[in-house]
C-alpha cells in the first residue's frame, strides 16, 4: 500500500512551550486513522500543522509524495487536504446552500457542472441538508451543523479528510449518525484522519490509531491490537 500522508519528526512550539516533539505518523490510502489522547496532548496541534494553520518548527510533511510543509491553507485545499475544524466553524448567518457554495470557493467558476455534481453528492449523504438548504446555518441543531461542516469540506472533494473533534458537543444519536457517515465517506475512497476525545467511538471505526500523550506518541497500532491493549482499556474503555 502507499502512504497518502507521511509526517516525520514533527516539532511545534507555541513560543517557549513545546506542543509537539519529534512526532512521526502516516496514513495509507483508503485508511481511517484515529488520533486519540487526553486534552493538551497535541492532537489538534498536529492536525492544524497539517493544514497550514500553525507554523512548523521542525519536521517534514509529505502529502501524495509531495512536500507540503509551509503551504498556506488555500494551496492545501486545492491539493485535496481538507479540514473539518473543531467547533464546526460554519458560517452561521449564511444559508446552508451558501455554506456549501463557500466550500467550493476555490473551485473555479467554469466548473459549474462539477459544483452541481458535488453538491448532489453531499445532499445524498446528508439529506437533511437538502431539506434545510434555504435555512440559516446558525438555526441548525449542533448535529446538523456538524453535518454541514463535513459537507462543506466534501465540496472540495478531498483525498484526505481531516476531522478535529467531530463528536464534541453532540448528542449520542448524532455522534452515531456522523460516525456512520464517516465510514460511508471512507468507503467512497476518501482517506480520513480523525482526532477525537471520544476514543471508544474513534477506535470503533478506524483501521489504525495513534495515542498521543504530552506532545508525543505513546502507542500506535492496528485497531484490534489497540482495543486489546491494557493501557487503552484502562484509560479509555473503563477497565
Amino acid at each position, binding site marked *: 500500500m502507499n502512504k497518502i500522508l507521511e509526517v516525520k519528526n514533527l516539532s511545534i512550539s507555541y513560543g517557549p512551550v513545546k506542543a509537539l516533539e519529534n512526532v512521526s505518523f502516516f496514513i495509507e490510502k483508503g485508511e481511517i486513522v484515529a488520533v486519540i489522547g487526553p486534552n493538551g496532548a497535541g492532537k489538534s496541534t498536529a492536525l492544524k500543522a497539517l493544514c497550514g*494553520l500553525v507554523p512548523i518548527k521542525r519536521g517534514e510533511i509529505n502529502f501524495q509524495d509531495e512536500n507540503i510543509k509551509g503551504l498556506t491553507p*488555500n494551496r492545501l485545499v*486545492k491539493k485535496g487536504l481538507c479540514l*473539518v475544524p473543531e467547533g464546526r*466553524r460554519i458560517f452561521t448567518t*449564511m444559508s446552508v446552500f451558501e455554506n456549501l*457554495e*463557500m466550500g467550493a*470557493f476555490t473551485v473555479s*467558476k467554469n466548473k459549474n457542472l462539477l459544483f452541481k455534481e458535488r453538491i448532489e453528492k453531499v445532499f445524498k449523504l446528508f439529506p437533511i441538508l437538502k431539506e434545510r438548504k434555504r435555512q440559516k446555518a446558525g438555526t441548525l441543531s449542533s448535529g446538523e451543523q456538524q453535518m454541514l461542516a463535513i459537507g462543506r469540506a466534501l465540496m472540495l472533494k478531498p483525498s484526505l479528510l481531516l476531522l478535529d473533534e467531530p463528536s464534541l458537543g453532540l448528542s449520542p444519536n448524532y455522534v452515531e449518525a456522523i460516525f456512520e457517515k464517516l465510514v460511508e465517506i471512507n468507503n467512497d475512497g476518501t482517506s480520513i484522519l480523525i482526532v477525537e476525545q471520544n476514543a471508544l467511538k474513534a477506535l470503533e471505526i478506524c483501521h489504525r490509531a495513534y495515542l498521543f500523550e504530552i506532545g508525543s506518541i505513546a502507542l500506535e497500532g492496528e485497531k484490534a491490537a489497540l482495543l486489546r491493549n491494557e493501557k487503552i482499556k484502562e484509560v479509555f474503555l473503563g477497565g
Partner: protein
Amino acid sequence: MIQQLILSGIIAGSIYALIAIGFTIIYRTIKFFNFAHGVVYAAGAYLAYALFFLLKLNPILSFFLSLAMAALLGIAIDRLAYRPLRKHNAPSLIYLIASFGVFIFIQNLIQLIFGAQILTLRTGPVKEGYNILGAVITNIQVLIIGVSLILFFLGWLFILKTKLGKAIRAVSDDPVGARVVGINSERIILVAFAIGSALAGAAGILISLETNIEPTMGLNAILKGIIASIVGGVGNIPGALFGGLFLGLAENLGIWKIQAGWKDTIAFVILIIFLLLRPSGIMGVKTEKEKI
C-alpha cells in the same frame, strides 16, 4: 414646509445610507470602526473636483474615475496602515487610533494640495426645481437620491449574490471557517475596502453637487454614517438603509420648530438613546465580543 423638510431628510438620508453601507462592508471583514472611511468620502469629492475642473474630463468619466481612485485609496489605507497591525495581532484600540491617524493624515494632505478654502462641484446657477406634492426638488437633488439609492442596492446585491460578496460574509461570520475552505481573508479584506471606499467616494461626490467641498467634510460624514449604522444595527446592510433614512429624516424634521443649528445635536441624541436602549440597533442581532 414639512414636505420640503421630508425631501431634505431623504436627500441627507440616502447619502448617510451610502456612507453606512460602505462602512458596514468594511466593518464586516475587519471588525473595527474604520474612521478613515470619512476621509475617503472627502477625497472622493476632491478627486472629482480635480478630474472635472482641473483636468477638464467629462463629468461621467470624472465620477467613475474618482470612484476607482477612492477604491485604490481604501486599498492603500488597509495595506499601509491596518495590515501591518494585523500581522502583529494588535489589540482593537490600536486599530481605532490608527484609523484616526489615517483620517488626520489624509485630511491634511487634501488641505496641502487643494488649500483650506471652500470649493464646489456645482456648475452654473441653481435652476428652478419641480414642484412635487408641495416640495420643490431640483434635477440635481433627483440625481443625488437616485444615484445613491442605485449604488446602495448595487452594493447590497454584491454582498448578497456574488461569490466575493458571499466570501466577505463568510470571513465576517467565521474567519477560521473561511480559512479552512481556502478563502484568503487578506484578499477578501482588500475587496471589501475597494468596494466600501468606492461607495464612500460616491457619497462624497454626490453631496458635493448640492453643498460645498472642504477638507474637513469627512468628520461629520463618518459620524453620521456610524450613527446610521448603529441605529440600523452595526454590520447589517438593510439596517444601514433604514438607519440612514431614519437619521436624515429625524434631523430634518427635528428642526421644523427649532433652529437649524440643532441638527447635529438631534443626531447625537439619537445616538445616545440607541446606545443606551438598543445598542444592537433596529435590525441587528445581539453580537458577541465584537470590537468597536
